[in-house]
C-alpha cells in the first residue's frame, strides 16, 4: 500500500494506479477529455493536469499518466494548475467553439472567452475513436493522418473503409459529438469516415436493424452454433420466443 497526500488529505492506495484513478476512487474530481477506462490513458488533451511535488520539486504532469508513488504530494487545483488548465481550455475553445463539452468545461473553470485564433473544428483530436477502434473493436478502421495542426482522424486514403463494422462505438465515445452516424432506410452512413454500409433486414418485421459487417463480426466472435436468431431484430427475437412458448403450452 502506498501513502500519498492529495489536496491536503492523506490517502492510501494499492500499487499500480495512476493519480487519476486514485482521485476517482476517493471522489476527487479531475476533468478529463481523452481518458476512457476501456483503453486507459493517452495523454493528449492535457486537461487532467495536476501539480506533483516529489522530494521538494514541483512539476506539472497529466494525472492519467502519472503513477502513484509513495510519498508524493498531489495538488489537483492549485493556482498553477488552475492557470494552466484554463489556458488549455482557451486553446480548445478556440479550436472547437461549438463543442458543448468544451463550452461546459470553460464555464466550469471560469473561462469566458478565448484569445486564441478562432478555428471551426469539431474534433479535439483526443484519439478516443482511433484507440477504441484499434484496441477494442480491433478493426483499425480509422487513424491519425498528418502532423501538427493539420492532424486529423480519417480512414486510409480518406475513402470508404473496407473494415469498418458500423458499430458506432467511435461516435459513442466521441466527447464532442463530432462523429455523426445517420441511419437512412437500408444504409448506415458515417460521413466523417466517408463510409456507407448496408444493413441487415429483420426476417420477421422487415426493419433494418444492424450494419451487415457488425452482424458478421458477432457471428465470428462468440456465437458458435446459435445463429438462427441473428437474422431477427432483438424485438422480434422476444416475440418469436414468446410465440414458441405459446406453441409449447398448447
Amino acid at each position, binding site marked *: 500500500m502506498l501513502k500519498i497526500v492529495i489536496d491536503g488529505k492523506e490517502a492510501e492506495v494499492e500499487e499500480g494506479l495512476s493519480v487519476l484513478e486514485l482521485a476517482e476512487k476517493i471522489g476527487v474530481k479531475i476533468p478529463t477529455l481523452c481518458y476512457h477506462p476501456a483503453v486507459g*490513458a*493517452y*495523454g*493528449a*488533451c*492535457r*486537461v487532467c*493536469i495536476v501539480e506533483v511535488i516529489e522530494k521538494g520539486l514541483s*512539476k*506539472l504532469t*497529466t494525472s492519467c*499518466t502519472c*503513477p502513484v508513488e509513495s510519498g508524493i504530494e498531489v495538488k489537483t487545483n492549485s493556482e*498553477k494548475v488552475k*492557470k*494552466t488548465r484554463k*489556458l*488549455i481550455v482557451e*486553446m*480548445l475553445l*478556440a*479550436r472547437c467553439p461549438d463543442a458543448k463539452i468544451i463550452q461546459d468545461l470553460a464555464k466550469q473553470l471560469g473561462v469566458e472567452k478565448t*484569445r*486564441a*485564433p478562432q478555428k471551426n473544428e469539431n474534433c*479535439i*483530436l483526443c*484519439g478516443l475513436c482511433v484507440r477504441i477502434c484499434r484496441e477494442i473493436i480491433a478493426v483499425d478502421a480509422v*487513424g*491519425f493522418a*498528418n*502532423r*501538427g*495542426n*493539420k*492532424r486529423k482522424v480519417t480512414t486510409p486514403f480518406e475513402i470508404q473503409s473496407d473494415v469498418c463494422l458500423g458499430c458506432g462505438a467511435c461516435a459513442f465515445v466521441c466527447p464532442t459529438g463530432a462523429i455523426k452516424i445517420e441511419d437512412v432506410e437500408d444504409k448506415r452512413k458515417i460521413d466523417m469516415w466517408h463510409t456507407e454500409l448496408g444493413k441487415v433486414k429483420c426476417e420477421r418485421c422487415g426493419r433494418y436493424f444492424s450494419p451487415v459487417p457488425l452482424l458478421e463480426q458477432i457471428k465470428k466472435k462468440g456465437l458458435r452454433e446459435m445463429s438462427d436468431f441473428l437474422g431477427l431484430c432483438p424485438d422480434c427475437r422476444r416475440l418469436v420466443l414468446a410465440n414458441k412458448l405459446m406453441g409449447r403450452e398448447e
Partner: protein
Amino acid sequence: MSKKIASLRELDELRKRGLKSLYPDKPRIMVGMATCGLATGGKKVFEILSKGIEKNGMDAKLVPTGCLGYCQKEPLVDLLRPGWPRIIYQQMDPEKAEKLLDNINQGNIWRENVLAKMEEDEFLIFDEKRKYPSGSKANLNNIPSYQQLPFYKKQLRIATRNCGFINPTNLAEYVARGGYYSLFKVLTQYEPEQVIEEVMNSGLRGRGGAGFPTGRKWIYSRQAKGDTKYVICNADEGDPGAYMDRSILEGDPHSILEGMIIGAYAIGAREGYIYVRAEYPLAIERLKEAIHQAQDYGFLGNDILGGRLSFSINISRGAGAFVCGEETALIASIEGRQGEPRPRPPFPAQSGLWGKPSNINNVETWANIPVIIARGADWFSQIGTQRSKGTKVFSVVGKINNTGLVEVPMGITLREIIYDIGGGIPGGKKFKAVQTGGPSGGCVPSWLLNLPVDYEQLTKVGSIMGSGGMIVIDEDTCVVDLARYFLSFLQDESCGKCTSCREGIVWMLEILTRITHGKGEEGDIELLEQIAEVVKNASLCGLGKTAPNSVLTTSLYFKDEYEAHIKDKQCPARVCRDLITYIINEEKCTGCMRCVKECVQEAIVGERRKPHRIIQEKCIKCGICYETCKFDAIKLE
C-alpha cells in the same frame, strides 16, 4: 579464408596494414568528401586528381576522407609525402588541383592555398603522438602549424578524432588509429558491470541534448528484466543548422559501431538499431559499408572476436519527421507505427522497442565510448566542468567567419568559441546573440558571452545545450523574426498529439507574425509569456516543452526590440518587410537608371540624369535596388 579477427595478434596485424595505408611510402592525397566537401565541389577536385594521377602515371594514393571541421575552407585537400609533414590545402578547385599535381610531380612544395601543416598525428586511443618528418630540405616555417591555427588551437577532438584523418570506408585505417582495441579490451578484461562503472565514473552525459548521465541510463537497461534487449543509436539529427552527427557518421562510422557493440555487451543486448534520418544518404551509405566490413572482420555477428559476444546492427531510416528524434517517437517509427511520443513512465530502459528494455543514445555519445574505455574514466572526467565532463561538438554557423564543426572541452566560454575559434563576425558587423540548441534553444546575448558552456550554465540563462547547434546572429538579424522562424518550424514538426503544443505553438506564432507585420498590440508580450509558460509545463514531450524557449529568451534579452515592433512599428534590424521603407536620397541620386531597370516590380520611376523615386505602394522591399545602387543613394529606414 576468413578475415575474422579473433586475437590481439590478428588485430595488431590489421593495425599494421592500416598504418601502411595511412603512411605509405608514396604520396597520399586526401580530399574532403563529406557533405561539406561535396557541397563545395570536392567531387570534381577528386575526379581531376584521379585523372591527373592516372594520366601522369604517378604512383600516388588518392583517398576520400571525412570532415576536418573547417567547413568554411572546404574543399580541403591533404597531401602527405614521405619525408614531409602533412600539408592541408584549402578552398581547392579543379584548376588548383592540377597545379598541386604538377608540383608533386616536380618534387616541389606548392605554397598557394595552404591552410596549415600537421607536424604530428595524435592517436587518442593509445595516448601516442606520431611525429612527421620535418622535411629538412625546404623552409616550412611560414606555414602555420595546424595546432596553432586559431580555429584548432582550443579544440580537443575526441568524438571527431578520426574525421578528416582516415578513409571512412577503410576499416584497417580505423584500426590503425586505435579502432576496436577498446572493444577487445572490454571483451577480454571487463565484466559488463565494470564497463558500466567506467562510463558512470567518466561523467559522460547524453550528447543528444537532454544531458542525462549515460552510465546511469545503462544501469537501468542492464537491471531491466528480460532476455531480449536493444541498443539504439539516435541519428535523426533534426535541428536546422546542426550537422555534428552527420559528420561523425560520414567520416568515422566505425566509432559508432564500436561504441554500440561495447554498449550491447554492457547491457546484455544482442541486437541494435541505428535510426538515421533519410535526408543523410551519404551517412547511410557509409554506415552500411561499415556494418558489412565489421561483419566480415568479426566485429559484428554471432562470434565477435572469437565468440565472446553476439550482436548485430540494423539500419532504420527516418522519413522526414523532426519529432522522431524524440526517443519514444523514434521507437514507434522503428516499429512501423506513427511517429508520436508516448507518456513516460514506462521509460525505454524498462519498456522500449517492441516492449523490450532498450538503451538509446545519440551518435556523439556512442563515439565517446571507445575513448573512455581506452583512456579511462579518470582521464575523461578531468576534461570539462564539474558537472559536464568531456568535450562537445558544436556546429558554429550563421554570421560567423569560420563556419564549421568544432569540438571543445566543456567550460570553454562562448566568447572563445565565437571570436577565437569562429573568427568573429564577418563584414565588421556587431555580434547580437548566439542561438544554441536549435529551435528548442534560446538566444544568448552579448553581455553573457563569458558564459562557460556546459549543460547547467546554458539552462540557467534560459537556453539549452541541445545537440550542439550554434547559430550566430548579428545586428542585421531581427530576433523577433528569428523567434517566428523557429516557431513556424516547430509548428510544422509538432506531431500534434497534445493540445498545449499543437494549439499553443499556433497561437504564439500568430502573435509573433502579427508583430512582425506591424500589427502588434499592447499586452502581446505578456500574453506570449503566459502561453509560453503553459506550453512549457503542460506539453507531453521535449519538443513542446522547449518550443517556447526562443520566444522566452528573445523577449527577455531583447525586450526593446519587441517593443520597437509593437509600439513604434519599427524593426531595428531592418528585416521585417512591413516595417521598413526604401527611400531614394534625391541629393545623392545621379539618375543613372540602374535601379529602375533592376526593380522587378517596376516600382521606381525616373528619367536619366534626374533623381528617381520609389513608388511605395508597389515596393515589395526585396532590396535589389539597395544592393544595385553604386552611389549609396538609397536609404533603408
